[in-house]
């Protein structure tokens, strides 16, 4: 395998990581219209739970499933107790502050509960390579695509999905149509927390080790992927994650001038794309009403 292919594969490996976190971001945005800064740290906390469960002897898949279930409940609780009272005051900035408070709080709680040392998260996939590609990476891609498909089915083909979308796009009028917006928003938070838990656990297992900085390193790239994809397209987030991952790997290999500041690339990429297509690569056009 030549160097170029290898670097592209490295990029794909990181790209699925960005894509999977971006997916959770897009999901919560589509279902609740909130930019959740705490998304990464919620996922980190769940990742530590998965890891802790594996050290207690649970099989890896079971641990991740259980942790996703815990995250589902946790996401709903966070929405009900912390987000909803603030959202009712109609202040988007205040919701941002609450998610920032969660961002700080969850990270330090995770360190208190699970310790400050780096840990090793075992992988649910068999080790080894297929055609030069790490099986972890392949596993992550498969899971990611399955998640995308299931979420798409949920959002587009079920009644609850319809409600989720209706509430996100216009909570006022959906309430008038008799939709219980509260329950639906809770579901949005719960779902994206669960997706985040799976993403975090798989990302940690794909990496050599993880510590409390796991998600903060990824978040900028995941945000970039979500933005590039237009923030409301599930598959767009995944594809954009891959684009950013590959671009990053190739920059490291071929652009010496950007050594250490490779992050300008995804930023420049979002900037350029947004200038040309204000709603991202995969976003839908929105009509502004006066």
């Amino acid at each position, binding site marked *: 395998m030549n160097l170029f292919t290898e670097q592209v594969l490295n990029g794909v490996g990181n790209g699925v990581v960005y894509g999977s976190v971006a997916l959770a971001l897009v999901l919560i945005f589509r279902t609740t219209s909130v930019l959740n800064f705490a998304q990464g740290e919620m996922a980190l906390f769940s990742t530590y739970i998965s890891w802790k469960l594996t050290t207690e002897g649970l099989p890896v898949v079971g641990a991740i499933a259980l942790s996703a279930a815990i995250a589902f409940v946790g996401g709903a609780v966070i929405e009900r107790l912390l987000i909803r009272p603030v959202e009712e005051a109609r202040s988007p900035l205040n919701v941002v502050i609450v998610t920032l408070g969660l961002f700080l709080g969850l990270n330090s709680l995770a360190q208190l509960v699970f310790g400050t040392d780096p840990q090793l998260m075992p992988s649910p996939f068999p080790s080894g390579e297929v055609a030069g590609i790490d099986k972890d990476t392949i596993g992550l891609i498969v899971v990611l695509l399955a998640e995308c498909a299931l979420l798409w089915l949920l959002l587009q083909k079920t009644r609850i999905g319809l409600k989720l979308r209706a509430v996100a796009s216009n909570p006022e009028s959906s309430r008038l149509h008799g939709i219980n917006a509260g329950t639906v928003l809770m579901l949005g938070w719960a779902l994206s927390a669960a997706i985040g838990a799976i993403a975090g656990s798989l990302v940690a297992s794909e990496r050599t080790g993880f510590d409390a900085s796991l998600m903060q390193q990824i978040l900028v790239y995941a945000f970039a992927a979500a933005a590039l994809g237009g923030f409301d397209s599930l598959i767009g987030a995944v594809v954009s994650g891959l684009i950013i991952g590959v671009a990053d790997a190739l920059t490291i290999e071929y652009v010496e001038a950007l050594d250490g500041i490779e992050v300008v690339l995804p930023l420049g990429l979002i*900037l350029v794309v947004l200038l040309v297509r204000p709603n991202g690569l995969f976003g839908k056009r929105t009509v502004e009403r*006066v």
Partner: protein
Amino acid sequence: MSAPVDKSDTTVEAPAAGDGAGTAPAGTPPLWPPVPARVRAVRVVIGVVLAAAALYAPYYFEPATNRLLSQALYIAIAAMGLNLLTGFNGQVSIGHGAFFGVGAFTTAILMVDHGWTFELTIPVAAALSALVGLAVGFPALRVRGLYLALITLGLAVLFPRLTMKYVDGTGGVALLRPARSQFDSLLTFLDDDQWAYGLCLVALVVLGVLARNLVHSRMGRALVAVRDQEIAATTVGVNLAATKVTTFAISAAYAGVAGSLSVMVDRLADGTNPILYFQRSIEFLVAVVIGGSATILGPVVGALLLVALRRNTEDLIEGKEVLAPALYGAALIAIVFVLPDGVVGGFRRLLARWAAAPSNQEDH
């Protein structure tokens, strides 16, 4: 239980915003409603007390406390700038840490490499930050809300990576420290810490008055109009692009001045910490919201509260210091819960209710 945020003092009816001639047509409610005499009296009293406290503080406190206060003052300046952008104009920026950094490194480089006097570097820092702000402001025209937050977040992450790569201080460390003697008090009757505090206070007052005048000007009405009804604002003649970009630049200049002052207070410009400028951005945003967004004094109150919180949470958790950010985060959430429109907003509501109440029937 949770009241809708009362923005009556800042919300503008769209048609009032851009009337071309600059005079409000008859019949439209004014942007700043007349203040009842009682309220005005209370405001004057509070103002006098605050001013007295601010002037007396540096003589009362130890140098270490003065330094904390000076930190609060420069955070307040940056938050005030961010408030113009976010509170009044509705553009959320998480990149003000980067503008702050541009200001700090401008001052530090001018002092360390070119031997400038500190005080002279402040306008240069402001100008350079404004320029960078302009450069960011133009693409920001095309992106709104979420996207803007993201792009500016990227700036805050990028900035320390640039300093690590290009700034070369002692032993190659991306840390610039002007000689301590370069910050000596220029007034013989003030100690160095009092001088630093005084300089920050003067900067805050000057920039505060400027911000207040700006907000009350035609430009200020345009800002708020753009925030509340962007498309409507354009239809009545607000130059959207100019308004947004100018606000961005002014706002960045405030952060630049704050960064410049931080070099005096902290005696260094730090480019070694990968998350420092992101944390700064968050600090400014938090100061705006907990103090009261779209108010002039809010960011000041928010900054003081924030510094006090950070300094005092640590002592509460002896042995479990790792929890400090959690306490801090919990405090933020609590404040947003109890005072959805910030300390100043809450105070205003209180005052307004008191003013509306029959004069000798205080209910408790």
